[in-house]
């Protein structure tokens, strides 16, 4: 097993997986929060934009979105988030396009998780904040979002775990993450077919299990008592 891990650079591959998950999680959190704010805003156009965003990206297969980032965003539209002068141009490009695809897709789920968190807040708190003279954005920042995040830790955590596993889709555009390593292992060591799977599966469990435990702990610790 150790020999497999060394031979196929499994640790490096998982490092790429971690980086993919990390950056796309942050981007998804930001984008998803913005979409949630749109959906909560009193402006009709923004509400509809947020709703359309969620509907579109929640219902499109992730693989399609990743391919669209590579073939469409880069291939057709010429959006190139990497420098051609760099030795690692193709690697960087695919890595970054994958992050965009993962973030855009999971932002839809983040948005819905935050909205479920908003639903844990009694309506009266928004009214109390308005009656104090706080504006929409102030009320959002001081009253609604802090409680929404704390009420949404579990669903947000579920999105994070799904995202970690979904990074494997990036293999479709050649990002050298865990699933890419697995593909190599299958090609060159079909004799240890099951072991190959096991190595990669265990790798993911090592990533997701602590994440899940942390989420349970955090959702207890930061629960808003009413």
């Amino acid at each position, binding site marked *: 097993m150790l020999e497999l891990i060394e031979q196929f650079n499994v640790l490096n591959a998982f490092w790429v997986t971690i980086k993919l998950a990390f950056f796309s999680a942050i981007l998804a959190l930001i984008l998803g929060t913005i979409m949630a704010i749109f959906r909560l805003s009193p402006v009709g156009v923004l509400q509809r934009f947020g709703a359309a965003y969620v509907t579109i990206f929640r219902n499109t297969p992730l693989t399609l979105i990743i391919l669209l980032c590579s073939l469409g965003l880069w291939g057709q539209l010429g959006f190139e988030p990497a420098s051609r002068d760099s030795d690692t141009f193709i690697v960087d490009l695919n890595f970054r396009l994958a992050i965009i695809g993962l973030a855009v897709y999971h932002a839809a789920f983040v948005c819905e998780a935050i909205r479920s968190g908003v639903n844990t*807040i*009694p309506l*009266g*708190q928004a*009214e*109390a*904040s*308005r*009656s*104090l*003279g*706080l*504006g929409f954005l*102030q009320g959002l920042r*001081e*009253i609604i979002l*802090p*409680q929404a995040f*704390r009420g949404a830790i579990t669903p947000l955590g579920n999105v994070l775990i799904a995202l970690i596993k979904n990074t494997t889709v990036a293999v479709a555009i050649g990002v050298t993450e865990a699933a890419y390593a697995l593909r190599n292992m299958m090609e060159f060591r079909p004799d240890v077919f099951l072991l190959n799977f096991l190595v990669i599966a265990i790798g993911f469990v090592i990533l997701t299990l602590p994440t899940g435990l942390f989420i349970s702990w955090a959702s207890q610790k930061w629960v*808003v*008592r*009413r």
Partner: protein
Amino acid sequence: MTSSAAASQPLVVMENVNKHFGDLHVLQDINLSIAEKEVVVVIGPSGSGKSTLCRTINRLETYESGSITIGGEQLPQEGKELARLRADVGMVFQSFNLFSHKTILENVTLGPIKVRGIKKAEADKTGMELLDRVGVAHQAKKYPAQLSGGQQQRVAIARSLAMNPKVMLFDEPTSALDPEMINEVLEVMTSLAKSGMTMIVVTHEMGFARRAADRVVFMADGQILEQNIPEEFFNNPQSDRAKDFLGKIITH
């Protein structure tokens, strides 16, 4: 207190205010003028529009026609101006509506710091004084869920007071409370009334109305049917609806 208050400047003026919820004409041509330092108790059967009346005054609800002015200023439609005017109108809700994730003191200082731009140290000091005034200063570092209903409502009153409002609205402030906690809240409200705060209070607590109100306004079906000084209203109601209503609440 009674006659002198009525003689001073009108602070809140509602003229021909109309509002619908769908087909329901919930406020019908409401005319109501409240003088500075006046304490007005609004009573009436459930569903008569008392809460809606309160909520239109600080525009938590919109209305279709008529006008509402506070200190002579029209209520703006929305935006910064509305927020500014709202800050001058305190509101105390039946369900307290304290911010669950903030401490008692933070609940009281949020408005002064974020809306009035007061420095935190100063807001904390004033906040503690207010909490002391409503008798919950020793709970300042706790969270709302750790307090009893009566204590939470007193904090809510302190939170409104911290904004230095021109007028305070109370929408059934004791209806959600266990009986043994009602008096502690009414006492705070009574002393507030004595201190000269302009107050509009929706309540069925007749003891409070007799003790603290300058005027009782009786609402039914979206209309103000009669208004009078408390003694007169309770002893000698004019309309059948008021007689009927008083008969029902006095018996229990």
